[in-house]
């Protein structure tokens, strides 16, 4: 076993009214990828903040290379060789790759900036070792999220970081980009860098993790060597982790619903636009239809076209009659509602309370003659909090203070309240922890049983396999195949089709 780089001993953190961490202890060994998993609110982010000096611990001690480590600022933590790759990347979009790399590394002489050629050379070398395809002269704004991450990682390594903390680095990456990131992480290990990896996606842990620590409710549940858990492909291995995270066994499995039998409520006939090529399909009453493809395959574009956000040619029929669906307003009037991919920036009014968010897609549900009733607004919110089980202080709780899962439930409530018969759900559980994910899935099943038709646009295969009656397979804006879900469904073939490796 390699030597211990970081020893976390009995760390606690108390906030007024909450114990964010209670007696957490574990070791991180040099040159390993150490994963930390846990539901939202388990204490992961508090732990990162303590490690990077953004928060001070209440008690306990941390040893770095055997010495007491207690950073008072992120700057100090960096001097100790600790870097973080946050979800919100720290690059300057207006500058070029080169300018970003040397930013903050300039030497100041007589009040003028001067580049240290040695530092610059080291930067280039590091970047080249990670990803030689990134052009130095390009403006960072034009790069993909994955490429921006590489730039941040390069900066971290060049400033002699020994430990890089990655906070859900794959949340916004496509499958291919994820693979490239994993190659980079393996390269980091080779360059003697230790990685702390935080993710919701258990599959990834099996792919790159050496050890995994599970947190739940601020407590340490356990640390396991990944090799002890078995390989990621097996059902049993993830089951143990999920059990540790939740404290209970979750059985997520597709149960054939009655959906897909009735008359079509929505039909697309040869719908095309800049991103879509003759997309045709129909959706039955009470059906859960999956729309699966990699990022860029046109999933979101189908949702946007139906919802009247993008122009389209071709025909759309709602309940058998042609509908133009030229704007969200018109789509909503036709009984269609969208749960957008970016729930915070597109689906929610984060500064408003739960109570104020829920009726906004259908203001008539709380008003008459243009005058709203605060009493009705309150009772409406309360009924949804109960019905979809939103965990909040009360209906006045601001949406920005809710966890991702509960925020998504507010978006869902908004859509249900719009009397929608057709729900378009774009990445319904992205960035949501395992427990809340299961709850959202159950809500979708419940809605479908009640006669609502749902289209789930997802880039997570397990999600569509768990949920959907039929699955549309997308590749480059076309529907390549439609498969009916069931025990005999061939996930390997599906992967082949959506990656374009095989013609349907």
């Amino acid at each position, binding site marked *: 076993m390699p030597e211990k780089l970081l020893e976390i001993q009995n760390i606690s953190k108390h906030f007024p009214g909450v114990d964010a961490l209670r007696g957490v202890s574990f070791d991180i060994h040099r040159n390993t990828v150490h994963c930390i998993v846990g539901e939202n609110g388990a204490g992961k982010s508090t732990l990162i903040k303590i490690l990077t000096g953004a928060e001070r611990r209440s008690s306990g001690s941390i040893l770095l290379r055997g010495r007491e480590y207690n950073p008072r600022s992120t700057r100090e933590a960096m001097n100790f060789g600790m870097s973080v790759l946050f979800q919100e990347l720290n690059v300057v979009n207006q500058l070029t790759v080169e300018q970003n790399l040397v930013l903050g590394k300039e030497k100041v002489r007589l009040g003028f900036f001067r580049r240290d050629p040695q530092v610059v050379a080291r930067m280039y070398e590091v970047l080249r070792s990670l990803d030689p395809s990134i052009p130095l002269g390009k403006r960072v704004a034009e790069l993909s999220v994955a490429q921006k991450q590489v730039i941040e990682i390069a900066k971290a390594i060049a400033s002699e970081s020994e430990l890089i903390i990655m906070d859900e680095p794959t949340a916004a990456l496509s499958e291919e980009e994820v693979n490239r990131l994993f190659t980079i992480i393996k390269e980091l290990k080779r360059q003697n860098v230790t990685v702390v990896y935080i993710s919701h996606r258990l599959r990834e842990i099996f792919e790159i993790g050496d050890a995994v620590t599970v947190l739940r409710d601020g407590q340490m549940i356990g640390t396991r060597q990944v090799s002890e858990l078995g390989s990621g492909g097996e059902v049993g291995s993830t089951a143990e982790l999920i059990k540790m995270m939740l404290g209970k066994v979750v059985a997520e499995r597709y149960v054939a619903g009655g959906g897909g039998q009735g008359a079509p409520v929505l039909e697309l006939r040869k719908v095309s636009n800049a991103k879509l090529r003759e997309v045709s399909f129909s959706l039955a009453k009470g059906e859960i239809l999956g729309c699966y493809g990699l990022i860029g395959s046109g999933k979101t574009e189908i949702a946007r076209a139906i*919802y009247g*956000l993008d122009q389209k040619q071709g025909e759309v029929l709602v309940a058998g009659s042609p509908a133009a669906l030229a*704007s*969200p*307003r018109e*789509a*909503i*009037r036709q009984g269609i509602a*969208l749960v*957008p991919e970016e729930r915070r*920036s*597109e*689906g*929610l*009014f*984060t*500064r*408003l*309370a739960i109570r*104020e968010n829920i*009726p*906004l*897609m259908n*203001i008539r549900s709380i*008003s008459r003659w*243009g*005058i*709203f009733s*605060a*009493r009705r607004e309150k009772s409406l919110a309360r009924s949804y909090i109960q019905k979809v089980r939103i965990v909040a202080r009360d209906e*006045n*709780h*601001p*949406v*920005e*203070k809710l966890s991702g899962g509960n925020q998504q439930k507010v978006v869902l409530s*908004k859509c249900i309240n*719009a009397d929608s018969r057709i729900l378009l759900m774009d990445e319904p559980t992205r960035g949501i922890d395992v427990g809340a994910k299961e709850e959202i899935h159950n809500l979708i099943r419940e809605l479908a049983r009640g006669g609502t038709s749902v289209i789930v646009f997802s880039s997570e295969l397990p999600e569509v396999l768990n949920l959907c009656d039929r699955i549309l397979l997308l590749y480059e804006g076309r529907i390549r195949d439609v498969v009916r879900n069931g025990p005999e469904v061939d996930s390997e073939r599906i992967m082949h089709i959506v990656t374009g490796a095989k013609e349907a």
Partner: protein
Amino acid sequence: MQADLTLKSGRRGATLDIQLLILVGILVLVMAVSTALTPRFLSYVNMINVLMQVAMIMLTGSAAVLLMIAGAFDLSVGMVLALTGVMYAFMSKNGIPTPLALVLSILIGSGFGLANGALVVGLKITPVIATLGTMYVAQGLAFIVAWIDGGANVTTGLPRDFEVFGRTMVGPIPLFLLIVFALILIFYFLFAKTNLRKYAFAIGGNQTAARLSGLKVGGVVLALYVLVGTLTGFAGMTLASRMGSGSPKVGTGFEFDVIVAIVLGGTSIYGGEGSFLGMILGALIIGFVGNTLNLLNVMFFYQTVLKGLILVGAVLLMRQLRSR
């Protein structure tokens, strides 16, 4: 009615409550200091005078506060105020029956609101730039009309009924003040109880989400601009009638007073949060401070400096309260 009228929105509710309390404290302080410095402050004549100035700020502010909550802005109100006053005088002097001139001058205000809305919503010009443009147009037009009339102001030769609206008294109180306050009350109702409130907060909070939720974002913003223009037209006509002349200089700094009152009242210049009662308190503070300085014969320029400081101070106060 209990909690329903305490215009709370999410977490900001508590912040706004504190801010309103602070404003009431400042208002009481300002009044106490003013009374101590100048006994004339509390006199009937002076009170009517201050209320008249403050009422105009509040009237335009009643709609402008919603506009700002919805994330937009109107800099043209000062010059539209001047132009509508000048037009009211010019039209009634040149043969248009006074009641008709009165209505037409208000509609000129509406027209400017419509133009502002069309520029911002239709042509997607940033509110600050669009309304800065219309502000200069209105200012220029006001001077042109006064020049055609043959002077700096439109004062002489006005029909006798020109001043009726501004001079009629109901007991000790001018009729126009009662009407203006009735209008402000109506707008308070609009703000507190109607869907317009819901729309404004939603659009200012997250325009994309508002559009995806099927709200008529452009329509609401346009309507708010028209309301602001109409109320400003009403204010301009009223001032002209009260003063017995139409002056192109009357609106100087008015847009600034309105914005200071709204921001002082806790409304974010970025939209998404705000308070009607705060705007009312803000207008009173601005009005009383200005009036006291006038009574003390402090030069106008110092007042301008002070108002600037109050605006910056208000923004800082907001940020302090929010960061806690």
